[in-house]
């Protein structure tokens, strides 16, 4: 793998990692989720547990992506696997929503937005884009 290609893969993997490790903190630690008055205390507890874990996984992934040393390619694949698990699980939760009465947003959360003539869910749009970037990063690695 040439230097530029390695740098590109590292940048893609970092972006994908920041997507689940940092964007979720910004998006969910507020009244739409962690302090949502409609959420029970234990539902909030699970959310904070989930998002702080993702932040931790992301920090570990960034270390794997950027730390000097052996196994560069293997470490990139590991960081990609973390992201694959987080995004894969998101789509599992999305596709199984009818089984547990789930929804991609609450009425006092993030409503869908209109773009290119479509009504798009914010979570689904962002995580779909990041999944495509993840697949591109793995293909280039």
């Amino acid at each position, binding site marked *: 793998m040439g230097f530029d290609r390695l740098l590109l893969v590292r940048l893609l993997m970092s972006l994908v990692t920041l997507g689940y490790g940092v964007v979720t903190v910004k998006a969910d*630690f507020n009244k739409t*989720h*962690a*302090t*949502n008055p*409609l*959420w*029970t*205390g*234990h*539902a*909030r*507890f*699970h*959310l*904070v*547990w*989930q998002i*702080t*874990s*993702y932040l*931790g*996984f992301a920090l*570990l992934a960034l270390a*794997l992506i950027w730390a000097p040393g*052996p*196994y560069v390619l*293997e470490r990139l694949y*590991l960081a990609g*696997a*973390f992201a694959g*698990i*987080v995004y*894969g*699980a*998101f789509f*599992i*939760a*999305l596709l*199984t*929503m009818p089984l*547990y*009465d*789930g*929804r*991609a*947003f*609450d009425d006092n*959360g993030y409503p869908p937005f209109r773009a290119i003539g479509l009504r798009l869910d914010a979570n689904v749009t962002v995580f779909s884009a990041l999944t495509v970037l993840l697949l591109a990063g793995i293909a280039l690695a």
Partner: protein
Amino acid sequence: MAGKEKIAAALLTLVAIVYAIVPPLVDISPTHILNPLWTSHAKFHTVWQVSVNSMLGLFSVLLVWWPGASRPLRIKIGAVLGCIALGGFFVAALTRHLYGGAFSDPNGVPPVAGMDANLLLFTPTSVIQVVALLLVLSPERTSK
């Protein structure tokens, strides 16, 4: 695998089984994911979280036991992964007064022997996890 590494691998496997298998068994029920008091998006987040932890637990076991030259590094990563999955629980527990969190809901999992069931499970599990981490991070002693 050397003795210390083998013990760590066994401990990591035990802990991974706990955080990969127990939460789906407990949480896919009317106490959590099917709880009528939870909003639909709160349920969504818990399905997402449980799925991640189950997959990471399985992934951690693969990291630990898959043969190859990079296994010592992978065991360390598996040890840190488990600490993060369980550490998030304690972060949520210690900061719960900041966001109105609770160990359980009124219609959730009742305490066991007067103690919160989550704490009862995850405290010893986390001790084992930290022991495994210390084992894999401590330098190997070489005989003279």
